[in-house]
């Protein structure tokens, strides 16, 4: 009956999302269940989903990236700062993406070569990167961004917000990489059994370094959208994003032990968090209680899936 377990793990999350949507649709049909609100939810979830997609690569290799929120914050500041200083958006974006990938590679090097457990390694870099952001910005937000910068997070193409388009493209790219390429197979294999992967000729260190680099890149894109949406680069903008990203990945059914996961699940996990936030706000539930409810939902979902695993996977 292993398949029913797989079924619950894989599709249970879809029913979870539908259940939450139906609940809010009944509670608030006029505000919640409208197409403009769904576009809003997608927009709100786009940054978290970008980070979650990167986080997923890392978790598939049985690692974790606690620094991606911090990277998003630093990248937002660097991209904004360089754009303002040079007057050229292109340089700003390039610098931002470079910083994101660079710190991702640093994470990867620490995990792959210094063999520091991912949790500790990225906890340390999270702290260091947060500090670097404060040093770089002197603790002050960066204002006066050109309107071209604001377009990334605020503009639309054919009535679809640009950030949703970026999220959708990233999803497609990640799906193709994980499901269709040799590299994707290596990511799953390394997370499943690192020794057997090495014996099959997989270059373990390249895989490990690259997953953190990808996480850094996606965090950078998320950070740029975040700064652009706010119209200002706040030094603390990224803090807490890493936890929502991890939550989305785990809700989506990816195993924290590595080797098993589903890209679509991560997207749905991200939507569950966004719908909860949005619905509860519409229902006027205070932000303090929202955090508690979110925590309980995550706990419940993970308990259901891991209960499924123990009980059915005979």
């Amino acid at each position, binding site marked *: 009956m292993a398949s029913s377990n797989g079924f619950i793990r894989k599709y249970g999350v879809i029913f979870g999302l539908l259940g939450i949507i139906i609940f809010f649709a009944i509670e608030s049909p006029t505000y919640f269940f409208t197409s403009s609100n769904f576009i809003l939810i997608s927009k709100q979830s786009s940054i978290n989903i970008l980070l979650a997609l990167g986080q997923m690569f890392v978790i598939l290799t049985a690692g974790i990236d606690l620094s991606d929120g911090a990277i998003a914050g630093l990248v937002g500041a660097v991209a904004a700062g360089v754009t303002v200083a040079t007057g050229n958006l292109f340089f700003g974006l390039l610098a931002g993406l470079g910083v994101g990938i660079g710190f991702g590679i640093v994470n990867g090097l620490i995990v792959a070569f210094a063999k520091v457990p991912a949790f500790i390694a990225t906890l340390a870099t999270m702290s260091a990167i947060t500090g670097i952001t404060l040093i770089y910005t002197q603790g002050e937000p960066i204002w006066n961004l050109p309107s071209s910068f604001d377009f990334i997070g605020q503009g639309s193409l054919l009535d679809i917000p640009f950030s949703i388009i970026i999220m959708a493209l990233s999803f497609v790219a990640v799906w193709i990489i994980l499901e269709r*390429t040799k590299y994707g197979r290596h990511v799953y294999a390394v997370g499943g059994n690192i020794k057997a992967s*090495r014996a099959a000729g997989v270059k373990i260190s390249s895989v490990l370094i690259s997953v953190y680099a990808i996480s850094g890149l996606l965090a950078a894109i998320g950070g740029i959208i975040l700064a652009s949406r706010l119209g200002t680069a706040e030094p603390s903008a990224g803090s807490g994003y890493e936890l929502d990203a991890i939550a989305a990945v785990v809700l989506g059914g990816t195993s924290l032990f590595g080797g098993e996961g589903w890209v679509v699940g991560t997207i749905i996990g991200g939507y569950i968090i966004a719908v909860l936030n949005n619905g509860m706000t519409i229902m006027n539930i205070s932000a303090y209680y929202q955090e508690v409810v979110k925590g309980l939902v995550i706990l419940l979902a993970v308990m259901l899936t891991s209960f499924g695993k123990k009980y059915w996977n005979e």
Partner: protein
Amino acid sequence: MTEILKINNIGKSFSGVTVLKNINFSIQKGELHAIVGENGAGKSTLMKIIAGELEPEGGKVYLNGSEVKFHSPIDAIHAGISLIHQEFSLVPQLTVYENIFLGREISKKFFKINFIDKKAMKKSALEVLKTFGILNIPIDSKAKDLSVADKQLTEIAKALSTNSNLLIMDEPTAALTLRETELLFSILKNLKAQGVTIIFISHRLEEIFEIADVVTVLRNGELVGTKKIDEVTMEEVVSMMVGKSMKSRFPEKPIREISNEKMLEIKSLSSDAFKNVNFTLRKGEILGIAGLVGCGNMQLGESIFGLRDFKGEIYLEGKRVDISEPIDAIKDGIFLVPEDRHDLGLVLQRSVKENHALPNLDLFSEFGFVSSKKEKRSVRASISYLNTKVSSINQKVDNLSGGNQQKVVLGKWLVRSPKILILDEPTRGIDIGAKYEIYKFMYDQVLKGVSIIFISSELAEVLSLSDRILVMSEGRITGELDPKSTSQEDILKFAVKGKES
């Protein structure tokens, strides 16, 4: 004789696929009952049902005449049944003695709080091992650092120490060499004398005929028959297993001239497991490397494949090669089928298809994209070549029977054209029909000019297949033998050389 266990009309299926149908049989108290059958026949599944790990669909189990319904392994243990799994269930981070007492830790009180008493546990573990004559296990080692044979012996000690009266052993000898197997058999005879009932699974029929009283044959999930061992011949058992008669266990050795062309030269190779090893492997030759558990032949094979650090020189077709990672060996055309399939051979949570493809993705992909067509064609070809039993190529490897998992490991390398194959226990846990196919595969390969390093603890197959045999003891090569004029005893003589001193 009285019946200790009776199985009545038991069935089992996994996700709609039936793996056991209407099983009826009984086991008498004090007998050694062998269960045989091809890979995937349902032997392990049946044993897990008896030991309370799986619930049967319909049917009844009677223990000592009364019906029992086990809902977990603990129920079975309390009823005096213990099962030694085909795949190891030791906790890798715990030591040998902690594993032996797992779940039954000895504790001492200190200010009314229970603390684990490691000293006492170690002492009792040593006593258990001593009673059964298992003397060579490094009792302080963590399970993850043990050789496969030592893991197996630890599992056996763990089960023996529970003092059960029905002991089920699922392929306990698959990882053992002749010497440990003999040790195990003397333990089993002792237990039998004390009235313990034993169920024993093995693909090595000689063992069954040496030690069992009764044999039951399963085929495709059905019970074919139960026979007293002295009323049946090996040929009859084989034909009950495979449904047709098999003339010989080994294919005929192809007559061929092995050229003097050197394929591989190993010069003064040393590591912490072997010392100053020198040998030459010729083109198209099968070179057997025999020895007892811990003699270093496994480590030697893994070193040549780049999995372990070593000092010394390796020459491939006359050229010095630098192998520091498996990827280097693979690029040079040297492949390894490892001894421990779960540790080095498989990614258990991924599918048959993905496991098969993992080392071959370069062949199946263009510009980094995997061609699903090429991949499927290749995995199907290797499944049908080795007759691997899978419900679909997307089945998780974890859900395959042990022998079929081994076939997936072997099948991975069928795709590439190797120069050198290092086969470390390639037939471990594989049924005789498939063994025959693997032997034929080895002959096919050497006829194509591939050279094979054949590490095996099954002396009969080493003798039958090898062109030349090296024997190792304590990390050194102690003898080079010609299989035509060698007996199993001769190999053993060299295998213990340097040990007694």
